[in-house]
């Protein structure tokens, strides 16, 4: 009989591997930025504790605003703040930022290219609370909004760097948040994050894994295992869904016999769709197998259980990469 795991509130550490972790990388990065940039304000909709923004609040209590459980107003007020010369970082969960506040993100913020940075917790399947809390289609929804930068970072290092890049970017940004104890995959020394650029982590050959978000960590582990199996597996990390580095994807695919995409998101409208478009537009013929979430609402349960059930683990990437077209 399989072990039954009990649902926890959530934590990436629940499902991360052996890598060291950093606590609340977003909040600490924002607090550091706040000292350099007096125009940064922090906002949340009753999820300050759960979106790691409290280090900023503690450092700058006068520049932190809890708007209550009202995500439309969170985003509208952030737009108003931006129009008076400030740069709001507004946090909530991805489901609420996308599904509930969508019109405000599109019209109040993106239509005028205002410097509002939306930081969205519980991306994809990182909570056991079911469809109400699992932001499984936010990357697609947000990528469809003109002018909105959409970032799905891999680890603690990239979250910190992407937070800084978001502040340096003049327009609006949607940043998926990994909260709590977040694994360190990339060495922080000399790490640079450039909006719209993919990151080649490992050269391909037999198979090329194109991944975004924390699936990149799993892709690297999968590549090690494939290597041991005698398959040369490359990994291209694509943290920005928009702007999308189609050139880097195409170049990488040309050097691989076949492609596997890996994303913590439904398999339509996110990374896989963008990869297929990029390859097809350039006449590059490669089989593309998709690892991602199914086109359905998922139940409640322990995160490790659900991630196995819905096939976004290292095992799933390895199995998919082993299959020949």
């Amino acid at each position, binding site marked *: 009989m399989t072990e039954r795991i009990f649902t926890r509130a959530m934590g990436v550490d629940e499902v991360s591997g052996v890598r060291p972790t950093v606590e609340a990388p977003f909040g600490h990065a924002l607090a550091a930025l706040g000292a350099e940039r007096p125009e940064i304000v922090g906002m949340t909709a009753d999820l300050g504790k759960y979106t790691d923004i409290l280090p900023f609040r503690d450092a700058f209590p006068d520049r932190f605003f809890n708007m209550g459980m009202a995500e439309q107003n969170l985003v509208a007020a952030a*737009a108003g703040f931006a129009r008076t010369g400030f740069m709001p970082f507004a946090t909530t969960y991805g489901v609420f930022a996308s599904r509930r506040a969508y019109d405000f993100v599109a019209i109040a913020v993106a239509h005028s290219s205002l410097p509002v940075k939306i930081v969205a917790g519980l991306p994809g399947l990182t909570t056991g609370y079911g469809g109400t809390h699992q932001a499984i289609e936010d990357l697609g929804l947000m990528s469809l909004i003109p002018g909105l930068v959409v970032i799905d970072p891999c680890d603690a290092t990239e979250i910190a760097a992407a937070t800084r890049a978001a502040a340096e970017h003049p327009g609006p940004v949607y940043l998926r948040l990994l909260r709590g104890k977040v694994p360190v995959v990339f060495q922080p020394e000399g790490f640079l994050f450039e909006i719209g650029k993919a990151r080649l982590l490992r050269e391909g050959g037999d198979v090329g894994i194109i991944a975004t978000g924390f699936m990149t960590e799993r892709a690297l582990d999968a590549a090690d295992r494939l290597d041991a199996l005698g398959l040369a597996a490359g990994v291209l990390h694509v943290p920005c869904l928009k702007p999308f580095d189609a050139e880097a994807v195409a170049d990488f695919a040309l050097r691989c016999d076949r492609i596997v995409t890996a994303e913590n998101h439904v398999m339509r409208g996110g990374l896989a769709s963008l990869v297929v478009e990029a390859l097809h537009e350039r006449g590059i013929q490669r089989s593309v197998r998709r690892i991602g979430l199914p086109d359905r609402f998922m139940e409640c349960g322990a995160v490790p259980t659900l991630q196995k059930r819905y096939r976004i683990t290292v095992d799933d990437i390895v199995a998919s990469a082993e299959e020949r077209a």
Partner: protein
Amino acid sequence: MLTMARGPGQGYVGQGLGIADVLAALYFHELRWDPGDLAAPDRDRFLLSTGHYSIALWAALAEAGVFPLSELSTYGADDSRLDMSTLDTTPGVEMIGGSLGHGLGQAVGMALGLRLAGSPARIFCELSDGEMQEGATWEAAMSASHFGLDGMVALIDCNGIQADGAVVLDMEPVAEKWRAFGFSTAEIDGNDMAAVVAALARTRQRDGRPHAIVLRTRPGFGIPTLMAREKAHFIRVDAGEWDALAAELEREGVRND
């Protein structure tokens, strides 16, 4: 406004004429702003949440000299800056209106920002009775009160109409709702210039409460024929009627002087 609507042969003349007195009182009396320096950080801001009232805003901004009066005839024409619904690319427009329920929340953010910056500037946000049906309006009202944004004034245009005709959900008692949400609230005839000017003057008080003025307005005010028209949300005027309507407005204007 009649001249503007004559080009397309239609337009939101009813709403425009209904709110015209309020805009006149704001732009030519209450707002501290400089038509020659539209980006001044300490300017008072007027937010037109009902973007389709643009016809009234264009009239006010042209009269103030933000753009030439001659440009008004381009209202609603291809490539005109004077759109049927406001975009913030037109000089003097402080937000994109038209997606109803957006104005008051942005006013909250602006009021918070101005306060944080130490600016004395105030925010006047127009919204409509129909717009109170949008839940975001009340999210914004809650937060305005919570944060004590006494530099913020909600101007609620109660003209009794919305897209499907007469107001489809009863919003009364309007003033009591705003009072209950913590706003210092007045209720006046929005087409009585003396009452509008006096009510706006009272909003200068900064006592920790945001302000609301419930404006009872009449669509098409100043032109009895339009005021009597049933489908006043989007007025269509036959080609032969314009001169007669203009003459009516002229007569009414003289009588009100």
